[in-house]
């Protein structure tokens, strides 16, 4: 009895975690909450596993707060889907908070804390995006001994397979480099889950290296900080999935560790990081360049010359080997040709505005912005100055690779740097070591920043509970916000680069600046500034012109009609010249949109922003009661941007005649308000691709009498 009491007294955190897990499991069942088989089991399991990692430490206050939130919200789950989502997110966030506290106990506990997240990641995160390609390539290397992935992925499932991706080359050359696939190959016998488990183990190794770097940056709790970098967004988005981001972050930390340590071991670590990074994915080559730049910077003048000569020789040897032995698969076929250089030259000049605004979008955009889904990033930005002042060498070793990576990312991929529809922030993972090191310069001090971590845990909890919400489709609305408040309110909550609104984006920029300022200078005011920022951004969104985005119309407001393109995958829309939003096609005589007339209006003004595609124009009827306005709409193709002509090396380039390349056209009709709704329809059936492609529709009351 006494031994049991001592055990209970010494392991109160473990016991409370186990009890909390059991309580969540039982509450889920007693309350009849949906999805009892997956999150209803896996979240309690995560609490239990995190409790084992916690062992003799106390349950953290954040976990208690989240547990209370679950206790309050769970009985109300049937009231609204948003309440169910919040209840599940609270339960998951509590488990993350427990694991984070457990991870602070040392290296082993950090690894165990990350592995504790394994079941919920492996079982619930959709296996999609680039993951099947890495898996297929892995099988191709191990089983077929080639790099052609298109005849693979039958290892566990005969019906599975992948088709050639954009940028995959002829002759069986995959879009992906083989190193990542080679690394996850040990998990191949267990299928996707096995390969993901290997990926999670590699992320755990990366977190150990990150903890080492954080210790050198002066962080007092490096293991907890490293865990949070992995388990909060954006790191969580690809944690334990078949993406190379965490391996690259680990290699970067290895290189930084080697650079800071010096000596023979340090040199080997640095060389390994620099050489392996491009083999993982050519996108990571700037990280190698940044590491090398830091090495040159901190070398003696005489050694600098030798280093540069050796680097030039090595680079030449690699490129020669690529050309002579590998047939150009690594670099030459894709980038070592005139067309690639022309694209870089012409497109960069034309897309200068997009490239300049990309860093702001990367912070505040509704679908990919880091700050809304990971508020701790505000501390990361605010702490850069402190890191520079206190640990300049660490700042340089982490900062140069991160800066080189971001510049190349935004310049080389001006349209796809965000990587939608894959998890938001995926391509920002290599920057996390820098952001974590700078964030913990501020988060370590008393009285500040805990609200940022708690808010980030809450967001991460939502993405653990409902992993599908981390995938956005470049349609202007965030999946998580839409699940909470519907697409229309979600669109007003945060600005979008897909649906640009200068005022909304400016308000978000001001809010982000205020948040960073508060994190740096007024940490105790952070909660108030957080609220102020949210109110500012939401208010600016509410000031936007009233109307409906056609693709967001609820089913009750439209009969028939179909979204264009039918597939939500944004890849097809990235290269439209007429704007990247999804459109609503009206092409059947029975397709109809019905919108409410503002109360008290004598007449209504119906504004349509659309693309009309038809030989003789598209006949459209706008009706309200007995009043009907007929119009025939036709819109032309947009002109090809100058850079396209530059690449094709001729002036008269015509863009493909498809709806995505038509110019947006505005039309308006004023009708007497003879009914409580106004309807829009096409007057005859049109064969695709002909039709009316609606972008936006506005109904305004004119001459209100009441």
């Amino acid at each position: 009895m006494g031994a049991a009491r001592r055990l209970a007294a010494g392991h109160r955190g473990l016991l409370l975690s186990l009890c909390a897990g059991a309580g969540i499991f039982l509450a889920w069942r007693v309350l009849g909450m949906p999805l009892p088989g997956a999150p209803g089991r896996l979240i309690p399991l995560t609490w239990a596993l995190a409790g084992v990692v916690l062992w003799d430490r106390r349950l953290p206050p954040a976990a208690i707060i989240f547990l209370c939130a679950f206790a309050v919200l769970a009985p109300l789950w049937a009231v609204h889907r948003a309440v169910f989502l919040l209840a599940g997110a609270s339960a998951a966030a509590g488990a993350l908070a427990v694991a984070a506290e457990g991870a602070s106990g040392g290296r082993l506990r950090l690894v165990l804390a990350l592995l504790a997240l394994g079941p919920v990641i492996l079982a619930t995160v959709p296996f999609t995006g680039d993951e099947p390609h890495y898996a297929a390539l892995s099988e191709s290397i191990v089983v077929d001994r080639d790099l052609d992935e298109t005849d693979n992925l039958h290892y566990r499932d005969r019906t599975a397979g992948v088709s050639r991706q954009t940028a995959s080359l002829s002759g069986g050359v995959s879009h992906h480099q083989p190193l990542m696939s080679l690394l996850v190959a040990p998990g191949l016998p267990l299928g996707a889950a096995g390969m993901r488990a290997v990926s999670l183990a590699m992320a755990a190794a990366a977190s150990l290296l990150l903890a080492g770097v954080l210790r050198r940056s002066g962080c007092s709790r490096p293991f907890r900080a490293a865990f949070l970098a992995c388990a909060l967004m954006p790191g969580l988005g690809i944690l334990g999935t078949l993406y190379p981001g965490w391996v690259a972050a680990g290699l970067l930390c290895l290189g930084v560790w080697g650079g800071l340590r010096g000596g023979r071991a340090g040199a080997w670590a640095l060389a390994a990081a620099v050489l392996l990074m491009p083999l993982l994915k050519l996108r990571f080559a700037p990280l190698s360049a940044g590491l090398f730049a830091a090495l040159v910077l901190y070398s003696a003048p005489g050694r600098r010359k030798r280093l540069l000569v050796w680097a030039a020789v090595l680079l030449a040897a690699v490129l020669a080997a690529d050309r002579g032995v590998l047939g150009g698969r690594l670099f030459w076929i894709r980038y070592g040709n005139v067309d690639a250089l022309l694209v870089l030259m012409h497109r960069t000049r034309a897309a200068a505005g997009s490239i300049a605004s990309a860093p702001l979008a990367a912070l505040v955009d509704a679908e990919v912005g880091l700050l809304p889904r990971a508020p701790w990033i505000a501390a990361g930005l605010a702490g850069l100055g402190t890191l520079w002042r206190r640990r300049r060498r660490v700042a340089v070793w982490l900062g140069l690779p991160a800066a080189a990576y971001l510049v190349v990312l935004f310049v080389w991929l001006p349209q796809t740097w965000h990587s939608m529809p894959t998890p938001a922030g995926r391509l920002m993972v290599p920057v996390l070591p820098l952001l974590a090191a700078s964030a913990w310069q501020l988060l370590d001090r008393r009285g500040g920043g805990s609200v940022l971590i708690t808010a980030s845990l809450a967001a991460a909890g939502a993405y653990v509970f409902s992993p599908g919400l981390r995938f956005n489709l470049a349609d202007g609305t965030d999946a998580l916000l839409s699940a909470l408040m519907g697409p229309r309110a979600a669109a007003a909550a945060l600005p979008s680069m897909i649906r640009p609104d200068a005022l909304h984006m400016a308000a978000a920029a001001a809010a982000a600046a205020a948040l960073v300022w508060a994190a740096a200078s007024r940490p105790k005011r952070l909660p108030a500034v957080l609220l102020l920022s949210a109110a500012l951004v939401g208010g600016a969104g509410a000031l936007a012109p009233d109307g409906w985005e056609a693709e967001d119309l609820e089913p009750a407001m439209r009969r028939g009609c179909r979204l264009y393109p039918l597939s939500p995958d944004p890849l097809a829309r990235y290269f439209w010249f007429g704007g990247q939003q999804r459109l609503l096609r009206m092409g059947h005589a029975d397709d109809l949109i019905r919108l409410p007339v503002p109360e008290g209006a004598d007449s209504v003004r119906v504004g349509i922003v659309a693309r009309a595609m038809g030989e003789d124009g598209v006949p459209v009827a706008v009706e309200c009661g007995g009043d009907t306005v007929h119009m025939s709409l036709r819109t032309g193709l947009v002109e090809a941007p100058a850079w396209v002509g530059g690449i094709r090396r001729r002036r008269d380039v015509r863009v493909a005649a498809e709806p995505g390349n038509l110019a947006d056209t505005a039309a308006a009709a004023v009708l007497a308000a003879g009914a409580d709704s106004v309807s829009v329809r096409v007057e005859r059936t049109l064969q695709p691709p002909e039709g009316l492609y609606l972008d936006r529709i506005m109904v305004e009351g004119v001459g209100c009498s009441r």
Partner: protein
Amino acid sequence: MRMPAFSRVPLAALLASAAGAALLALRGAEWQLWAGWGIAAAAALSRERDPWCLAACVALVLPQAGVGGTAASAAVALSAGMVAGSRAGLAARTAALAGGLVVFLDGRAGGLSIWLAVLAVAAVLPRAGARRALLLAGMAAVPLAGGLPGPSSQQARVVQERYGEGETVWEGPVSVRVGEPELLLRCREPGTVFLDLGAGGVRDEGPVGLVVTDRMALPVTSGRETLQVRQTSGWVMVTLERGYTPRTHPVVHLFGAWTGDRP
């Protein structure tokens, strides 16, 4: 009498939040929710560092974001409860209680009646720990006292259709769970509709849901099946026939539906 310790930043936050919320409220939120928000937010911001007060403000996002009915009422009631459980003074707690009461007077917080009594008692208790314990116990008692609080009157959820050559296709998957409205499939003309359905989450063989038309009603049992129904009225409805009982999670999934010969 001394004013509560408002510093400039929280006061600015309060004013800006109120302005932002007013803008959002003008887009459709009802006056009761707006009143509840105002009172509870004023109370919440009287102590800027208390996480309960911060959570109270966050809870108020939903009603202002266009989520209406019982969900919004519950959010306001929860917000008032969080202020009642915070370390705010008696005046602020009483103000929050008043904010919470507004939604109960509105009659939209069905199923949360016991929470009202708990809120009223908790708001005046002197110790914060006792207030919090009572509020948590009160929430645990909600399902025991009157079942799960459900949403207020809801309209049927329309399933999006697509028109093709003489046929109509309805896009799935769409699900009906406890507390969610039935699904409505609009038909252009009388005829046969095929529905690809799945159901489950119960511990017996009885019907989980029903497919209803003006001509017939067919039960949907556990498992996956394709049902064929006739209608002449222009609609088909899919409903859930189970209410809340502990240890069941009834659900009906509509994976898709179509008219004509489409398999």
